[in-house]
């Protein structure tokens, strides 16, 4: 069975990538299962989608603990533990494909991985600036597994993007084709792995819950504002930075229009962005009348923070 896991951010097209690859496998005569993770598929949030393909009925379900191929559309997801971790379950025979401007050897050393690491060069202009790389990633994956023909890939893209305007479809076909060609040298490097045997059946360790009065089983819980423990700042790929020189100390535009209420003024009236929760939508950058807020890549901001 082939097991492929796509990681990206909501809006990058990883669900679509999984559907394209799944349909392409199906066209090649495989039994297929493809599914996005459910629950947190929000624009900018870390998401993943999985594809299983085999010549026999697929009995595995749920998340994919031991993938043969992991594709990461956004390198900033690599340090994050969310979603079980982008690199979780990658054995020596697995393949990691990163959509990144940094070369594969550097990544292999940085991540200290035993498995094969490949990169798909990052070319933002090709995605129309919108960051949709679903077809690109599906095209690369199709070649890496080695048994999906270009015709099956293109047919799957036409099927999955049927509702898109013709020029969007054409651009995606081109991107996918280029990614397919770029992976030629590595065609077939992703191996099939056998269906995992069911782990030795162990009796569930059931805990008996006795019937309780309502005030015990449904206690009043007073926990206001607990959402602030969720660090949605990790969604951010671009960071808004306020220039105190240019800021006029009007807090009400950026502060009111920030969807996440993540901007409030400090004592002197200078708005301060709560980077723990700012999702990087950049509405503040767009609305500041003094152009006092600029956006910089999150990775660059972290490097600046790290170096004194």
């Amino acid at each position, binding site marked *: 069975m082939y097991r492929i896991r796509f990681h990206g951010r909501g*809006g990058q097209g990883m669900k679509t990538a999984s559907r394209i690859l799944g349909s392409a496998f199906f066209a090649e005569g495989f039994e297929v299962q493809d599914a996005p993770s459910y629950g947190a598929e929000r624009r900018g*949030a870390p998401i993943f989608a999985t594809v299983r393909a085999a010549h026999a009925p697929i009995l595995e379900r749920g998340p994919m603990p031991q993938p043969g191929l992991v594709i990461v559309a956004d390198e900033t997801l690599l340090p994050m533990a969310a979603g079980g971790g982008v690199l979780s379950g990658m054995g020596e025979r697995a393949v990691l494909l990163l959509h990144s401007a940094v070369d594969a050897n550097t990544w292999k050393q940085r991540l200290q991985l035993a498995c094969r690491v490949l990169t798909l060069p990052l070319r933002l202009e090709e995605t129309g600036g919108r960051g949709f790389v679903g077809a690109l990633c599906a095209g690369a994956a199709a070649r890496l597994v080695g048994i999906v023909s270009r015709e099956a890939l293109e047919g799957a893209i036409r099927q999955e993007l049927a509702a898109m*305007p013709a020029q969007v479809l054409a651009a995606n076909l081109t991107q996918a084709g280029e990614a397919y060609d770029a992976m030629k040298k590595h065609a077939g490097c992703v191996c099939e792995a056998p269906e995992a045997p069911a782990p030795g059946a162990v009796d569930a360790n059931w805990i008996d819950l006795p019937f309780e009065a309502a005030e015990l089983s449904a206690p009043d819980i007073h*926990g206001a504002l607990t*959402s602030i423990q969720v660090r949605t700042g990790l969604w951010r790929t671009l960071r808004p930075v306020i220039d105190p020189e240019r800021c006029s100390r009007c807090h*009400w535009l950026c502060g009111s229009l920030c969807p996440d209420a993540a901007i409030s003024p400090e004592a002197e009236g200078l708005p301060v962005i709560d980077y723990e929760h700012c999702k990087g939508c950049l*509405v503040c950058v*767009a609305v500041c009348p003094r152009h006092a807020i600029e956006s910089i890549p999150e990775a660059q901001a972290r490097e600046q923070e790290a170096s004194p």
Partner: protein
Amino acid sequence: MSETIYRRMSDLPSTHLLGGGTAMCAGCGGLQALHQIYDVLGTKTVFVNAAGCMTLLSVYPFTPFRGSWLYTAMASAPAGAQGVRDALDILCDKGRLPRDEDLQVVTLTGDGAAYGMGLSATSGAIDRNLDFLYICYDNEGYGNTGQQSSPATPHGAHTATATGPAGHSGFKKDLFGIWVANRPAYVATVIGTEPLDLARKIEKAAKLSGPRLILALAPCPTGWDFDPQQAAEIGRLAVRTGIFPLKEYLDGRVVHTKVKRPRTPVEEYLRAQGRFQHLFEPERRQDVLDAIQARVDAYWEHWDPSH
């Protein structure tokens, strides 16, 4: 003229009550409106939330609110509000809750519930003159499940269930008009990109009792297909083009609180969103564009005939 504490932008709240860390999309126009609304309503509120995107605001053990929140099925938030209101009244009557600690009951739903599935429960709540504030964040589709068409979807928009060359064939239902026809205490439209107009309306609504609706247009980067950074510009275009009129109903009268003259052609609003791209490419659908503009023009011809 009723007194307002929100005379100018600098009167708007600078610190915010709603917590960060929620699962709403980056650039969510609904959350933008909600956090402004919450700042004005204050903490003496209990939210009754129908299934929808904002269900994910409070996922145990996390909540961005400072008070209680109740989750109901999609069609029954106003019924849930009735139960909470009744319970509060009983507690007050029995002296177990001091009257000055009484809570504002706020129903929070998307347009799927407000315009469609939940409209029957809403109608019943209005019949019973329920004292509640209904907030609808209207992103013009069933956003949480992938933007299928809802009764709030505008004509021509592409949705997950309207993928044809002319988009959605229906027209956005007039929920404001449906409420007004019942002569409730207050009805208003708001948008997060007009925070001062929003704050004044919420301030007014909070002081009234009986059924009240706040209808917030919620530009939706995911469902409407635009870059999150464009969220504010699209909200402003919705007002400038006149496609989303800012208005309120009080004491038997409808008053428009922002009237743009001249109005920007509605095309500018449509062009900025992916869900309308099929009206421009590969070929321009002048017939659909004209139909949309004609409806906007007819609306304003009725309400603002001299311009």
